Structures are given as structure tokens and as C-alpha cells.
């Protein structure tokens, strides 16, 4: 089908998703820091104030707890809020709100109605700006009851998943990656599309090893797959896209084919999402372990804080060559 498309980078795709949903549903409102004054710290909300006015977008003081709490309050009272946190480490400033209020509060008290709130944020890692700015919080978000966790890696996925997030009746943490915002433009269909949660996407097919990852690491995994290809190793790259819910069946299917599993993420290895992915795989395919061609492996950031130095961060966080090396050690 020759659909009409438009060329957008990831932040433009997110911006478009927001606008489309705001046009479609008057209950969608947006708030956070510098969304109007600067069009968002990375132009995420550019043009929204101009189009929708002060009843639909609000600039707040630097109050992250309040932003997340307000998302809860708005979602309980007839709106469908999208609250922005300027970068993903800031979930730590609003941790009780994110982990215990948004995800579980109403059900703890016995109320089981909808809570259509989205918290939209992005990981700022990969620039050597230190632990405080680079936190990749997905493992913690996954450990909270009641939160869906979305981590896109392409403009196409970001748009379709953000729209799904806004229409979801449960709280969603939408965690993009700043390093991808201004990447290459992609051809995005002009016609509306949604991407359902819980559907992994095979970003590259292969037959010797399955690399499971998400967010910015997908691109490193793809680069590694290119390199491996040159060396005669065919890697399949599975992008989970959403961590809760998690599509483990696609992983199982892939590993049944390849016989090898490597999980890669940017966040710290210890107690990271990789451990959960591996456990889910084992639970879903207990017999596979007996016949796999190599032990399952995970690759994440070393268990130390990210030094605020572009010279050191690449030695702590997995890079393309680390992925290549890890795969080769499995073969």
C-alpha cells in the first residue's frame, strides 16, 4: 500500500502524536516545566500553546512531585493528562508519586476505576553528563504495580505508542531517549496509526543469536548486528518496545530459532530489566535452557555510578563493540 508519508524525526513524531490526540479528545491536557516558555526542553511541545491555548497546556514551577501528583488528580477528575518530567532521573524526585500513588494508590484503597494518566519523559544518557542526569529508570518502574512502561526507539514507534499511551485507561510511563530525538528523519504515515502495547518488534531478522533490547540500545544492537554480519554471524534484534506489558513470546520464538539469547540495556546491570527479561524467558520456555547453544547473557551498565565525563561513560555503558564481543563469546 503506497500510503502518504511525512518525514519526521522522533521529537517531531511525538509532537505530532500529542497534537493529534489533543485535537481528537478535548480531555487531553499537558503540563510540565518550560513547555510553553521554551516549547519544551527539547521542542516536544512546540506549537501546542499556540494551537490549543492555556486551558490545554500549563507551565509549572520546578516541582516534579507536584507534576506527577497532578497527573493523578487530573486523571481522576475527567481529564486525560500528559505530565512531563524534563528528564527521566527526575522520577526519583517524584518517586512516591510515581511508584506508590500513580501505580497503586487507588487500588490499595479498593477503588478499581480508570486512571488515564501519562508521564512523558526521556533518558538523557549517552552524553557523559553523570548519573544524576542519565538514569534509566525502567527496572524500577517495572517493579511498581500498576504502571505500564513504554520505551520506543524509532520515530514511527514513538508516535504510535504515545498515541496508544494517551488512549490507555491505566497509568503509562512513556520513556523516550533524548539521544534519539533529533536523529534521522523517518517516513511516517500521514494516516493515523496506533501501536498496541505488548508487541515486540523484530528490528532485524537473524538466525545465530537473539539480541533482546529496547530504547537507544536497539540502534547499538543493530550496528553490532551489521558488524557481526561482516564476520559471518547473523543476529536477530528484538525491540521489546514496551516492558510492561512484555511480549516474551516473540523472544521465545526467536530463541527457539537461534538457540542463543543476549539481553542488552543501558541501565545498570544489577537488578536491571535484563534480569526480569531473562526470568520471564526461563518461565515461558523452561525446556529451552537444556538445548540452548550457549548460556544466556546480559549486558548492561557496570554497577557503578556514571561519572560525569564523556571520556568514561562509554566504558561503563555497553557500546557496539561490547555487544559484538559478547555475541562472539557465545558462539
Amino acid at each position, binding site marked *: 500500500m503506497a500510503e502518504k508519508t511525512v518525514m519526521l524525526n522522533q521529537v517531531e513524531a511525538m509532537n505530532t502524536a500529542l497534537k493529534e490526540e489533543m485535537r481528537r479528545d478535548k480531555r487531553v*491536557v499537558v*503540563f510540565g516545566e518550560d513547555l510553553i516558555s521554551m516549547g519544551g526542553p527539547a521542542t516536544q511541545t512546540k506549537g501546542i500553546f499556540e494551537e490549543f491555548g492555556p*486551558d*490545554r497546556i*500549563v507551565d*509549572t*514551577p520546578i*516541582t516534579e*512531585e*507536584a*507534576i*506527577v*501528583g*497532578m*497527573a*493523578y*488528580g*487530573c*486523571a*481522576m*477528575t*475527567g*481529564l486525560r*493528562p500528559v505530565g512531563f518530567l524534563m528528564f527521566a532521573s527526575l522520577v526519583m524526585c517524584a518517586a*512516591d*508519586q510515581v511508584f*506508590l*500513588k500513580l501505580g497503586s*494508590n*487507588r*487500588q*490499595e*484503597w*479498593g*477503588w*478499581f*476505576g480508570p486512571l488515564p494518566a501519562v508521564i512523558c519523559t526521556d533518558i538523557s544518557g549517552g552524553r557523559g553528563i553523570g548519573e544524576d542526569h542519565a538514569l534509566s529508570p525502567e527496572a524500577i518502574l517495572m517493579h511498581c*504495580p*500498576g504502571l505500564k512502561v513504554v520505551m520506543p526507539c524509532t520515530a514511527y514507534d514513538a508516535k504510535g505508542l504515545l498515541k496508544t499511551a494517551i488512549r490507555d485507561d*491505566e497509568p503509562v510511563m512513556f520513556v523516550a531517549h533524548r539521544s534519539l530525538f533529533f536523529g534521522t528523519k523517518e517516513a511516517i504515515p500521514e494516516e493515523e496509526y496506533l501501536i498496541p502495547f505488548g508487541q515486540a518488534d523484530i528490528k532485524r531478522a537473524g538466525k545465530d543469536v537473539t539480541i533482546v533490547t529496547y530504547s537507544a540500545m536497539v540502534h547499538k544492537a543493530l550496528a553490532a548486528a551489521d558488524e557481526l554480519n561482516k564476520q559471518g554471524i547473523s543476529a536477530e534484534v528484538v525491540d521489546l518496545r514496551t516492558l*510492561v*506489558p*512484555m511480549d516474551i513470546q516473540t523472544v521465545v520464538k526467536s530463541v527457539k530459532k537461534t538457540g542463543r539469547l543476549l539481553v542488552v540495556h543501558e541501565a545498570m546491570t544489577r537488578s536491571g530489566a535484563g534480569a526480569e527479561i531473562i526470568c520471564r524467558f526461563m518461565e515461558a520456555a523452561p525446556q529451552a535452557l537444556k538445548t540452548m547453544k550457549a548460556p544466556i547473557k546480559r549486558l548492561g551498565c557496570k554497577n557503578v555510578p556514571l561519572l560525569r565525563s564523556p571520556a568514561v561513560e562509554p566504558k561503563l555503558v555497553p557500546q557496539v563493540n561490547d555487544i559484538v564481543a559478547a555475541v562472539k563469546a557465545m558462539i
Partner: protein
Amino acid sequence: MAIPKEKSLEMYRNLVRARYLGEKIFEIFSAGGSNMVGLHRAVGEEAIPVAVCAVLRKDDYYKPSGVRMHPYLFCKEGFTMRDGLAGEMCRALPKVGGHDTYISPELGVIGKSGILGEDGPMYVGAALSAKLRKSGQVVVYTCGDGTANRAPVHESMVVAAALTLPIVFMIQDNQYGMGTARSKVYKIKDLSDRAKGYGFPGISVDGNDVVALYETVKEYVDRARSGGGPGLIVAETYRLGAHSVGDAQIYRPKGEAEEWWKKDPLPRYRKTLMGKGILTDAMVTRIDADAKAEADEAGKAALQVPLISYEDHIKWAYDVL
């Protein structure tokens, strides 16, 4: 401001009902086997929810103070005493009366936090929502003197001030946060001075005086409703009992509680209304008997309300494992 006679009687009735409700909670808790998780009594502090609920509209948002005041939501239009009791025992009739335990968005109750003060931002969100929806609703968010120091309460006030939101903050200053006397953690005598730092009006009021409370809450709620933004009311009262069961109260000076018993809002308001001829002996007797009967009835009814079951709880979830 003259309080309409009917309002006065409603508030008196609610004070009496609140007192009996408190006793009923204690009775059920003491009997055990009630699925009741803890007990934080509120005797002597009932004037505050009574006055607030007398001012609010049915669709206004209200968060009573901290750990001890939630059952007193029964004073809010749409709730019943049975609900207050059932909520305390985590029982619920889904959709009966339109609410489940303590959360009922359509009646203005959107949640509460066991972690003190974290519900502040949630209710600020309701205020932002009311403003964006232009619904004319107002929020009253109450917390304790101990809780008022917490980070999220501060951020709530910051945002409410910045965005001129329709919310009234109330500090229910009962002089203690667990074992900590208010004077040990505040270097200000009058907690309403906090408002000065945010740039909205603040006032302290006798929290055991129903009339003063009603008038102040009305003034602040009316201002918020007409776009005048937030305010802070500090209601001075006293925690007559222990923080919770098991608290030996080693920190409390002898005789202090006795002094405060003399300011008990219930006999005090009764006297006021009798002085004005609004209440007669006969009415007092009847209201008392009615309230007692209602509390007995509510106690029984609450114990009939089914416990929220594992199946109810698990039904909504999407990744239970």
C-alpha cells in the same frame, strides 16, 4: 456572617454523629475480627470535617486530615456513616451509593496516601482540573501539623499559588505528630505564617469552634471558587488521645489533655446553639438518640458490607503473574 439555622443544626447533628461514629469505630476495633488495620482516634477534632463539609458542594473535592479523619467523610453529601465505617474495614459494595471504600471521584474523594502529605499533589491536580474544566469546583486539602512540614505539601502550595488554583489548604493542628510536640519542630508560633511565603492569605482559627471554622472555611472557599486562588487555614485543636493503639504517650505533659477536654467542641457548640434558642433540651435528647441509633445501625450495616475480595482486587490487573 449569620449561619442559617438549618446549617447550624446540620453541623450540630454531624458533631454528635461524629462522636458516636468514633465510639463505634473503637468498639468494632476493640472487638477484633473486623479486618480493621489500625486505630487512630479523633475525639475532640471532629469540628473540622463537620464545618468543611457544611460549606462544600457535593462535587467539591475534599481530603480530610492524615491518618485519623477519613471516616468523618460521612459528613460530606453523598456519603453515609456506614461508608465511613466500611471504609475503615476495607469493605465495599461496588457502585452501591456510587462509591467504594474511601475513594469516590464523583463525590469529590479521589484518594488518600498512607505516606503523609503525598495526597497533596493529587488534590492540587483536582484543583487544576477544576480550573481547566471551568467547573466551579473547589478543593479543600487538609493535613496534620506534622505532615504540613513535608515536601509534597510544600510543592502543592507552590504550584497552587503559581497557577492560582481553587484550593484551600487546611492544617489540622492538633499539637502533636506522633510523639513530637508541634513546638519542637516549628519555630513559628502561628502556622498560618507559612502562607506568607507563598503569597496567599492565611489565618489561624479555633479548631474547636464550629462557628469560627464554618465562617473561615466559607470565606476561603468562596474566594477560591470565584477565582481568587488558594489560601491556608490553620485549625487549632488537640489530639486528646494516643497517636494510635500501642502509643504509651510518654511524651505528653501531665494535665495537658485535661485542659483541652474543657474545650471539647461538642458541648461547646451545644451551649452556643442553646443560648441562641436554636437547640432545645428535647432536640438535644432526640439528636443524641438518633445519632446513637444511627451509629449502631451503621456499625451493623458496615459489617454486612462484603470485604473486598482477592478476586475483586485481582480482576482489574493486567500482569499479575
